[in-house]
């Protein structure tokens, strides 16, 4: 079923003490996709994810996970979903392997699931810590325990809320490799992250939230292509102490004799050259830079609604 919808959100509203956290969000996430939810702090990403997982009660709107309404059909919806929350948790009474077995038990899964739990512990580098308590683990380790907890019941949809925040780079890479593998096995992956290049590299589809509103929902490539700017790095032979106004208008950043210019895509190259020569600048090199998601994101969140 290539066209099946893993998560369907319809007209979702949520406010806290009268302040809107989500405003009329509608969104469909196809089954098997690798989906990123991006937005600045406070945009409503965690609130949206909380609503999908049932930890947050929306004011109105409906959500289905793998076709199951998260309220009316909560048992099936929750079986289909695994959430890695943004906030770390603790559990002082049970060591982590037992905690994982308890979690599986909640889902009605007994001893038959224990081999999978041991596999998770091994894959996530937690095997040596299987009899340790959460409170003795580092933040990165706790994060991995949370990933294991979300996966004990092999959910069709895996949601990760900023899973790499505060995790060192090595661990981050191995985490991504593991999540990629899950995706390859057919799990739908939804994540929020501040590491935009990673979302760009990993995710096929991206939704951008700002102040509780959906700004964009596109294939990653389309989103980048639809970005109205392109970036050009020019290396200059001579660098005047003061750049003329018409050049500073285009300037994105500068370092030594290299300038990065932000240009409207419809600006002809000949026009640009005319501007530069009129400014008395001599080029030795010119290189086009790819628009990164970071740029797309910045444009959208500062310039308002796109597409």
């Amino acid at each position: 079923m290539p066209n099946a919808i893993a998560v369907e959100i319809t007209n979702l509203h949520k406010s806290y003490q009268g302040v809107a956290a989500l405003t009329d969000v509608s969104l469909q996430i196809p089954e098997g996709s690798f989906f990123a939810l991006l937005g600045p702090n406070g945009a409503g990403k965690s609130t949206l994810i909380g609503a999908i997982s049932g930890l947050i009660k929306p004011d109105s709107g409906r959500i289905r996970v793998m076709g199951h309404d998260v309220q009316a059909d909560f048992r099936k919806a929750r079986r289909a979903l695994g959430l890695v929350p943004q906030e770390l948790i603790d559990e002082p009474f049970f060591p982590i392997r037992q905690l994982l077995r308890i979690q599986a038990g909640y889902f009605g899964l007994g001893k038959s699931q224990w081999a999978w739990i041991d596999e998770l512990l091994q894959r996530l580098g937690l095997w040596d810590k299987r009899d340790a308590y959460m409170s003795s683990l580092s933040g990165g380790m706790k994060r991995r325990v949370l990933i294991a907890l979300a996966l004990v019941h092999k959910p069709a949809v895996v949601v990760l809320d900023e899973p790499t925040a505060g995790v060192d780079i090595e661990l981050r890479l191995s985490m991504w490799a593991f999540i990629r593998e899950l995706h390859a096995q057919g799990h739908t992956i939804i994540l929020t992250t501040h590491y935009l290049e990673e979302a760009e590299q990993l995710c096929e589809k991206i939704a951008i939230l700002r102040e509780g509103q959906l700004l964009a929902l596109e294939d990653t490539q389309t989103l980048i292509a639809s970005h109205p700017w392109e970036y050009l790095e020019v290396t200059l032979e001579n660098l005047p102490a003061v750049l003329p106004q018409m050049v500073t208008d285009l300037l994105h950043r500068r370092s030594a004799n290299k300038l990065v210019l932000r240009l409207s895509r419809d600006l002809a190259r000949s026009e640009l050259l005319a501007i530069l020569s009129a400014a008395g600048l001599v080029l030795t090199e010119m290189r086009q830079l790819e628009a990164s998601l970071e740029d797309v994101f910045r444009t959208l969140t500062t310039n308002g609604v796109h597409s």
Partner: protein
Amino acid sequence: MSMLGFLTLCKKEINRFMSVSVQTIFAPLVSTLLYLLIFGQVISSESSGFEHVSYNAFLLPGLIMMTMLQNAFSNSSSSLIQSKMYGNLDLLLLSPLSATEIFLAFVLGAVVRGMLVGIAIALVSYFWIPFVWINPFWLLSFALLTTFVLGAMGFLAGLWADKYDKLAAFQNFVILPLTFLSGVFYSVSALPAFWQQATWFNPFFYMVDGFRYGFLGVSDVSPWLSLSVILAFAVVLSALCLVLLAKGWKIRR
């Protein structure tokens, strides 16, 4: 619905307090025995208010019941508030367990802890205050129903409280005075009229009085009345807990 999910949570709730049994079983056992020793020694010459019943024999069931109900309350309330504070309650809320299953498992944990504490006190104290086993039906009914009600009360308090001190306040200003004024240490019939009437509004009185009937065959009010009052409490509290839990009151934001 899968029974395994519910049973897993029940087992977890029991293992939780058993893993710290020095605090949860042994400490209440010791403090109750101290009460028994001190009050029994100091006041043992007092009359119990009932014929053929020594003060010690009168005191023992009341003390057992007092400790059972306090521990039942303490179990569900601290389990719930700890889960909230540590954030691991979300693990439960993400699971397919229903409000009813979650409520019953927490209350069952409270019942088991209350019963274990009660049995431990009865066994130890039997060696110096032999009691006559009058009626196991009343004894068990009151023990189970009372720990159930207090488990539900603890659950409600745990839902409501978002900090430990709120819970401590509830324990100090509601549970403790109500237990001390429930006729554990005296027969209500010995009180002035006003205080007697005030006692009729204290639900803990019926728990202590009915439980004592199971031990001694004497009580201030009919055990049927006590049983009805406690049953009514059990129904109302359960309904309230289930509605609030299903709504996600204070737990699903």
